[in-house]
């Protein structure tokens, strides 16, 4: 019965599914959200040209018409701060996701392409990374790192978070390896790297994209975690620093919700938008999930 069904269900080709994706409501909503947030961070300051890092008004003022999001404990404009913070955090998030995805893809590809000792070593590294909680590892490395900048943070977070993805990717690539169209390429004499890049990657593209999307949020949360624990970079301003300062300067205890609620909302919205996009992609590209 399953065999018969797979024969009669048409294999959805990539351009066709891309069209489906772009029309899927979940994808659109998620995309709009993340776009809005990104624009908020990048272009916002143009419409709201207030300097977030200098004292502007009295400290800890609730939202008003002059200061739409009030001021923080140092008298700075929270809305302006939020924009800058969003920009930095998104930057860290994307960078982290990019690094993790890149490392993961390379690791899995090398592992599958060359097998043998290379595979063993990479699998061992993956197992190690998976056994230690990534937060802890990132913390330790970040603490001992000589230079503290956002790029370094992204590097640390990305460098510790790729293990699970790499393992899943490796498993999928391995099962793909047995498929016929791979064998055809091999018979045609394609080199291993070419097979991996041309034949295998498109098939797992959806999985890679989903991981990337999901990891952006991890990056932002990771950055916030490190900042909250005091491991923030020496200069720069991010959502994590907003959290950290609202804690150390007693913003929470003094009820300045306008200071710490918006950054959290931004992170949550990013997470939700990524979730929507991921599930939309998953539903379309993974035929097993299609509803009957």
């Amino acid at each position, binding site marked *: *019965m399953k*065999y018969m069904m797979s024969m009669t269900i048409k294999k959805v080709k990539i351009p066709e599914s891309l069209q489906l994706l772009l029309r899927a409501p979940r994808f659109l909503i998620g995309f709009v959200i993340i776009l809005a947030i990104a624009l908020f961070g990048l272009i916002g300051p143009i419409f709201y040209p207030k300097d977030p890092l200098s004292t502007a008004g009295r400290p800890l003022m609730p939202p008003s018409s002059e200061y739409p999001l009030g001021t923080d404990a140092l008298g700075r404009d929270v809305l302006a701060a939020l924009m800058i913070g969003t920009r930095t955090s998104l930057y860290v998030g994307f960078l982290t996701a990019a690094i993790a995805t890149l490392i993961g893809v390379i690791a899995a590809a090398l592992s599958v392409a060359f097998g043998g000792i290379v595979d063993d070593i990479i699998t061992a590294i993956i197992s190690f990374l998976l056994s230690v909680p990534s937060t802890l590892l990132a913390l330790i490395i970040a603490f001992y790192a000589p230079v503290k900048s956002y790029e370094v943070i992204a590097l640390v977070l990305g460098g510790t978070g790729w293990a699970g993805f790499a393992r899943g990717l490796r498993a999928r690539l391995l099962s793909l390896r047995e498929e016929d169209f791979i064998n055809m390429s091999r018979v045609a004499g394609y080199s291993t790297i070419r097979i991996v890049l041309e034949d295998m990657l498109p098939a797992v593209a959806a999985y890679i994209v989903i991981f990337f999307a999901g990891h952006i949020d991890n990056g932002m949360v990771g950055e916030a975690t490190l900042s909250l624990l005091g491991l923030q970079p020496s200069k720069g301003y991010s959502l994590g620093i907003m959290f950290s300062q609202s804690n150390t300067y007693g913003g929470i205890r003094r009820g300045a919700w306008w200071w710490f609620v918006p950054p959290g909302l931004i992170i949550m919205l990013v997470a939700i938008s990524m979730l929507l996009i991921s599930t939309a992609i998953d539903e379309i590209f993974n035929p097993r999930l299609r509803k*009957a």
Partner: protein
Amino acid sequence: MSEVLRIENLKAYYIQILAGKKIYVKAVDNVNLTVRSNEIVGIIGESGCGKSTLARAILADFSPPLQYISGSVILRAKNGKELELHKLSRDMLRRYVWGVEMALVPQFAMNALTPTLRIRRIIMDIMKSHFENVEEEKVVERASKIFQSIGLPGDVVDRYPFELSGGMRQRVVLGLVAMLGPSIMIADEPTSALDVSTQKIVLKTILDLKKQGYVGSIIFITHEIGAARQIATRFNVMYAGKIVEEAPTEEFIEKPYHPYSSLLIRSIPDVAEVLYYGGSRMKKEFTSVAGAPPNLAEPPTGCRFHPRCPYAMNVCRREEPPMIHIESNRFVACWLYVKK
């Protein structure tokens, strides 16, 4: 001989929604089938012809994406009452029909046993679901007796399913069905995933169970004519969701009427014949069935076999042939035999 199961004009399609459009996969399209008590009815066809769907349809297991369209499935229960299975709710079917009146030995019988429970526990759970006052001692004793009579070792009851081989697990499932004593046992591809020697054992087990009275009639669904021939008394040939021929086994093998049937028979080298007559017979008669089974979402017009039929006529392309009665107990759906 009385009728135990009567299926009339049964239609059951798979509904799939792709890119907003509804697609009907006509897996069971106007099927008529009768099973009498103590019969072994074989349903033969290639993969993808709808056989396994028919098995589900016989059980009236219409759960999405399979939908009941029309027709009837009427079962005569052990207490004599006639049950219209297609009208019963799933809950009613589970409680009163499935297992006790009609049992399916599925294609995946090897994986049908919960891997992490001992077999005696599975048996107890099954018994308790159907009967009251189940005593473990008696149940296990009866089970062991049945298992031993079909050639399984005595301690199988205490094992975990994963400790047994595929063939053994299949026989355990057969034994479980035997314990419930249904009037009809549906065996869906019981021999497919097995090697030839295990196949023989399983076939023998099925026959034994019937001979010893644990099951009444058997519906044997397979694509392997050789296996079916060994135990079925009647053959039903299925193609693209429809039954195209029905005949007693030996008459069918000797002289198949439908073009598809003859292609099926000739495509299977009979090992015994080859050994007896030597290789020359094989060379003469072996032809494979050309082409591929049709797309059940968009079947061919008229007679569904016409694209692959060497005898296709114009009428075959236009109209579906009716099922007509040829000789005393043979039926065929082919324009070749319709007298003008």
